[in-house]
């Protein structure tokens, strides 16, 4: 399997996280098989992959939780193997499983973090109060964390990560298991962090999430980086993107088939399919052509590639993706 590397449109900011030849195996099973990453300062990097792809292992290694078998790894200007403690001082980590103390209150959790970051008592209290307010946890601050909802725990978790004002933040599947509202509020929080100049390394199973948040995306598959680039570049790799037009009137169907290029005809279903990245410009050109030919389609659906498509496209040359229609 070859690695597809695409030119990045990101600026030439210095990398704050680099990995070269990162390798890790558990009990003889290779989990990470020579991974190279370079993440620019102040950017959002998304590591995309299905469950079990090794995303969490990458985060655990880069955040000093576990050791790598091989690889040259630097985070925040420090070598991971030589000076893990300096790396720890530069990073904040919010893991997949909530790293909060359920037996004490949200406020006590925040003050615990303030103490461990050696803030003065006054500064610790102020920081805790500010973050609790920012993460909408003021009302719950005096309640035991064991009574919090999943979304509240996740917010507290991230608030605790921010106590030390880290410049590099690792977020392992920050929105998995959250309801849509909590997911969007988490996205907003992440965007606000980036606006403040923080570098964010996140993992996700969802292409949409990477698309929403990330400047660069790497797809992890079988312990290797199958592709990396901007979200746009990744989606262009996928052949699955297309527009489908359906007609009730066979005459309209036939004239549309003549008016448009590169169409795949489905005569029985009276529908036409043409490759498209789903962009506004491409859609407009299709609609313009139909308009100038005086044809009106009865239904228009845009299929945008999803993670499955990306995976099939990147990891299998023989196996074409099963076409799935998604009405948007």
């Amino acid at each position, binding site marked *: 399997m070859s690695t597809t590397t695409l030119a990045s449109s990101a600026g030439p900011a210095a990398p704050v996280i680099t990995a070269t030849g990162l390798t890790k195996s558990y009990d003889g099973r290779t989990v990470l098989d020579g991974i190279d990453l370079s993440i620019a300062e102040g950017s959002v990097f998304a590591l995309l992959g299905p469950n079990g792809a090794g995303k969490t292992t990458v985060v655990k290694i880069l955040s000093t*939780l576990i050791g790598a078998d091989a690889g040259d790894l630097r985070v925040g200007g420090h070598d991971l193997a030589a000076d893990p403690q300096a790396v*720890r001082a530069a990073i904040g*980590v919010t*893991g997949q499983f909530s*790293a909060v103390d359920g037996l*004490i209150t949200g406020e*006590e959790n925040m003050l615990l973090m303030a*103490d461990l*970051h050696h803030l003065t008592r006054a500064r610790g209290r102020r920081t805790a109060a500010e973050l609790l307010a920012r993460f909408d946890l003021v009302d719950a601050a005096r309640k035991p964390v064991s009574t919090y909802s999943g979304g509240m725990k996740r917010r507290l978790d991230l608030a605790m990560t921010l106590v030390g004002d880290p410049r590099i933040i690792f977020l392992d599947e920050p929105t998995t298991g959250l309801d849509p509202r909590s997911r969007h509020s988490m996205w907003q929080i992440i965007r606000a962090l980036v606006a403040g100049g923080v570098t964010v390394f996140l993992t996700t199973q969802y292409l949409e999430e990477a698309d929403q948040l990330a400047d660069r995306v790497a797809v992890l598959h079988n312990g290797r980086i199958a592709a990396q680039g901007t979200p746009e570049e990744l989606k262009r790799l996928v052949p699955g993107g297309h527009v489908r037009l359906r007609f009730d009137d066979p005459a309209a169907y036939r004239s549309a088939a003549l008016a448009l290029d590169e169409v795949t005809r489905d005569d029985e279903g009276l529908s036409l399919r043409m490759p498209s990245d789903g962009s506004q410009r491409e859609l407009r050109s299709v609609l313009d052509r139909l308009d100038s030919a005086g044809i009106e389609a009865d239904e228009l659906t845009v299929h945008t590639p999803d993670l499955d498509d990306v995976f099939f496209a990147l990891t299998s040359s023989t196996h074409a993706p099963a076409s799935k229609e998604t009405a948007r």
Partner: protein
Amino acid sequence: MSTLSLTVRDSHTMLRRNLLHARRYPSLTLNLLLSPVILLLLFVYVFGDVMSAGISGGADRSDYIAYLVPGILMMTIGSTVIGAAISVSTDMSEGLIARFRTMAIHRPSVLVGHVVGSVLKVLASLLLVGAVGVAIGFRSTDATALEWLAALGLLTLFSLALTWIAVGMGMASPNAEAASNMAMPLILLPLISSAFIPVGTMPGWFQPIAEYQPFTPAIETLRGLLLGTEIGHSGWLAVAWCLGLTALGYRWSTALFNRDPK
């Protein structure tokens, strides 16, 4: 910040967390206190006549109370440190410990907080059980201040030793149930020590087992200090057990803690 002040500050933070847990959820520590107290009352008030006759030849219960209380105090240590095994194993299965590991803190402070917290809880428990002992008639009026101090030192040292062992058990257990099962010997060993009856009255083949396990020398030394009985070689044996168990538990716990988490 210097290494020493970092160590002290982070250990203090972790200790505060541990004591905060104990204050919010005292039931764990209090439940573990039940068995020594119940055994004390059971052996004094239910089996007391027979036991007294066996110990002193008379039917004076106060002799047996005097004999029993030092043993019950040591047993209290064995049963309350189980709380440390349970809370360490619970803690290690939580994401919070992973967070601590990725922070620039003095790493051993995580364990130090548990150990110091456990020793303090054990001492508080000893105070409670000791008060029950005094309430039912235990007196140690002949002991000098120095002997009292030595007794307190021995209780603290034995608590520290068993706590480190319990912390190792907690580290080695995947969950709270496994930790509490693994820590069972800490409750069972006092039952086969000289806590309830003198070793000399046990079957001959069993006497060496009872005599050289950690609890018997510690109990005999405490008896000697509080009641003026013969200590003999028990004092050195008790100190050796304490130091040996502390070193073993410390090495075991830190080795497990420094391993990569799963």
